């Protein structure tokens, strides 16, 4: 991987988690079943889409770098994590 990109931010997982855990549940449930892009500190949702690629397209339309967000699928309330 010697030709890998440079200037990759280190993302503090605990900072993201702390803010993610405080995000209002009723707000988050609006995104159930969608992919969302969070700020790296987990305080805000920047964009969403029906799949990962649509989420990325919306970020690019907004002039945002997809490598500088945390992308996440928001499960619907009845979804378990079993594969």
């Amino acid at each position, binding site marked *: 991987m010697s*030709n890998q990109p440079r200037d990759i931010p280190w993302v*503090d997982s605990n900072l*993201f988690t702390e803010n*993610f855990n405080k995000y209002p*549940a009723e707000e988050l449930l609006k995104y159930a079943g969608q992919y969302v892009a969070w700020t790296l500190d987990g305080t805000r949702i920047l964009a969403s889409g029906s799949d990962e690629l649509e989420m990325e397209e919306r970020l690019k339309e907004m002039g945002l770098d997809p*490598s500088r967000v945390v992308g996440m*699928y928001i499960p619907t309330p009845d979804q378990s*994590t*079993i594969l």
Partner: protein
Amino acid sequence: MNLRFRYKLVRAGRLIPSLGGRTVRPRPLVDVTVIGPIGSRVRPALLDTAADDTILPESLAVLIGVDLSTAPTGSATSPITGSIPLRYAPVTLRLTDGREQREWPATVAFTPARLIHPLLGFAGCLQYFTATFMGDREEVELAVNALYPGT
């Protein structure tokens, strides 16, 4: 020093009888940076001791420039979904808890199957760490072991 991560609280949207009526499910999801030849992405991934491989969605491979056209293939089996196809390729993985930083090369599996969360399984991740899951604290600690190939 070890990496220590708090569990993420995933909203259930209802009362969960097995958790005494809580409305969130604590999960050991850590924000992993997946680095490929042309880019990187950050995704919360589940530390999963039941997963033999580290499994990521194929859509991520496209976004970071990983060529899967000639990749070795395999499959994973779950009792719920049956068999899912896998294609293996090298990436770099990165984790930090805000104090310690770890980055290592890993051969991971990409799948076209829909994953609720990417999985950090044995190969590519847990083989390199001693993992301690602290259910009472809803935290997980990762200590590198002698096999750890990174920095």
